[in-house]
């Protein structure tokens, strides 16, 4: 298939793998930031094909995984109200809250709808004037423009019954948090290509300089990842540390200006709690005061909800690259996609779910990739 197969070519993959191996004079640890990258790496077996000297660890870039438990519990409380239609992206449905999840709320009679776009939620609000329609606005900078647009449109139309429960996160502060953690072992990043498509690459330059770390935004096909790893390794071996764009077919230094303008006309930067990691300064977006009429946090009595996290889930360590899913005793036993203990087991972008889906809880006898 055009524009896909070119990025899945076995010969080029082998050449890149040889090139990476040829560069190595010591061991390196590279973090792929985005869950989409994790998915590709595990799906194609890239981590098992890499030479021993380079290790990929999985980053915090899964929006489902890092949405704080408190927000999940708030979403569940709102979704249980009789006059509410609660709208969510599909993979938030099974994220475990303290007691239950949205899927079970729906089964118990709550009006919970899976939508593909916040604009679908706006349509529902127009069609159901007697209901309060609440959209669960989660995600990184990639979903922020459309979510911002929905809030902006609701204000334009003077809608009284459309609200957003906002839990938005930003990538650059999370990279700082990973790098400044006392036990950090990450030496280079594969930055999230689609986040950079919106935001550009300039905001990563100070990070590369300050922490002396190579940052390479990549695409999501196997050759994108391999080429990204090759570029990070080349920089590390040469002692370089700069932003180097692998995903030039989509990402520009300035990003999408129109999308950025829409984001910052509706949202402002705030401190944000990341599930499993904790509060990271300036790492989130919240609605500006102009949009308070559409802020579910103000419209619903949810401030007093106190969450309690399962003590058996180590997703915080996994999201920061300190551990891999295989290190967790619950992985594949107590914790499966059918019964997730933590959010990293829910979304297909979550490291644990990706590992589970691609059979990493089962250890085949011949684990090494076959040559030729």
């Amino acid at each position, binding site marked *: 298939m055009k524009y896909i197969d070119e990025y899945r070519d076995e010969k080029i993959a082998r050449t890149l793998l040889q090139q990476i191996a040829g560069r190595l004079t010591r061991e390196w640890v590279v973090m792929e930031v985005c869950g989409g990258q994790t998915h590709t790496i*595990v799906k194609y077996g890239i981590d098992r094909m890499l030479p021993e000297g380079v290790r990929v660890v999985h980053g915090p870039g899964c929006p489902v995984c890092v949405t704080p438990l408190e927000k999940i519990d708030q979403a569940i409380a709102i979704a249980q109200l009789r006059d509410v239609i609660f709208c969510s992206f599909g993979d938030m449905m099974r994220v475990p809250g303290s007691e239950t999840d949205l899927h079970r709320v729906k089964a118990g009679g709550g009006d919970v709808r899976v939508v593909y776009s916040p604009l679908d939620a706006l349509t529902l609000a127009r069609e159901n004037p007697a209901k309060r329609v609440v959209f669960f606005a989660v995600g990184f900078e990639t979903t922020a423009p459309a979510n911002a647009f929905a809030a902006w449109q609701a204000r334009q139309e003077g809608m009284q019954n459309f609200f957003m429960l906002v839990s938005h996160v930003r990538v650059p502060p999370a990279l700082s948090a990973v790098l400044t953690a006392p036990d950090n072992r990450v030496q280079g990043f594969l930055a999230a290509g689609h986040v950079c498509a919106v935001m550009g690459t300039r905001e990563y330059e100070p990070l590369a300089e300050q922490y002396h770390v190579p940052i390479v935004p990549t695409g999501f096909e196997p050759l994108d990842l391999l080429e990204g790893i090759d570029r990070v390794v080349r920089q590390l071996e040469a002692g370089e540390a700069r932003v180097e764009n692998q995903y030039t077919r989509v990402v520009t230094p300035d990003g999408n200006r129109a999308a950025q303008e829409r984001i910052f006309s509706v949202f402002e930067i705030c401190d944000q709690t990341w599930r499993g990691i904790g509060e990271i300064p300036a790492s989130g977006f919240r609605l500006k005061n102009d949009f308070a009429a559409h802020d579910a946090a103000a419209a619903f009595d949810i401030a007093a909800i106190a969450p309690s996290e399962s003590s058996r889930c180590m997703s915080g360590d996994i999201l920061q690259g300190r551990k891999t899913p295989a290190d967790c005793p619950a992985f594949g036993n107590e914790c499966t*996609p059918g019964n997730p203990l933590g959010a990293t087991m829910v979304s297909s972008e979550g490291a644990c779910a990706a590992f589970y889906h691609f*059979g990493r809880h089962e250890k*085949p006898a011949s684990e090494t*990739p076959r040559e030729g």
Partner: protein
Amino acid sequence: MPPKVNHGAGACPLPHTGTETVLLGHGSGGRLSEELLREVFLPAFKNPYLEKLNDQAIVPAAGESLAFTTDSFVVDPLFFPGGDIGSLAIHGTVNDLAVGGARPLYLSAAFILEEGLPMAHLKTIVASMQAACLASGVALVTGDTKVVDRGKGDGVFITTSGVGALKKNRAISVERARPGDKILLSGSIGDHGIAILSVREGIEFETRLTSDSAPLVSPIGRVLAVSDHVHCLRDPTRGGVSSTLNEIARASGVGIEIDEGRIPIHPEVRGACELLGLDPLYVANEGKFIAVVAAEDADRALEALMGDPLGRSAALIGEVVEDNPGRVVLRSRIGGRRVVQMLAGEQLPRIC
């Protein structure tokens, strides 16, 4: 337009609405039920066994062994590109018999209709069942109809059961795969699931995706005609190719290795899966089968299969191995290896 029906003194207290829609009375067992039978079902499936309208059909046992199966169909939407719930209900049961190595003979059909279903819809569904029976060489010999209140069904639910005949020495079964056997796939994967999804979610593609719903009697017949060493046959419906291969690997206590690059798939289906983040290995098929064949017969079987209109894009996709018993290992397009699992949870809700 459905034919005009003369309602006499109604057996049910119904407003005189004609038969533009299915009414609760159509499931009452009274006059309307009989009308439905005489005007919709009987003309389509008329044969000496059904005509008797007994509670059961007595049919001659035509083989040395009888195969018997049943399946329910609850597809949403009822009509989709390449078929509808009617053709699906016939093909599904016919194929369940055919993959046992049996020649499908007689079918039953039980309908659960929702009050308010347009009669024209029911007639279209019945007509496509009629065509599917003809194409599959089976007779629908017994049936039942119930009607439920509006809102308590989803238009039409259909359950079909079927019997087929097979030679006594034919032993095709999920636990008979042996190391060295080759794995044949009769054609491209994912067509049905993606066709359904594109209609249900209103996703439009440049090319129209069509369900592969079809009776597999003929292509399976061709394979069986050239090989006495077909060990397993399975149609990868819900759960897709990966779930079917996992069932075979587990039941036979063998490993299975497949090559991603050899699995036939239409570019439209691949594109849709890329777009929607789905793995086509888990998407449902309704007109494909997997054959596990002894290595010495594999080329012959593949050639025979490709001679059938439904097997033209058939391919040898992998083999049965001793390593990793119970597991299916896929060699990815770039040469990496991963375990392919059973579908965990629903990838697409309610395909069929």
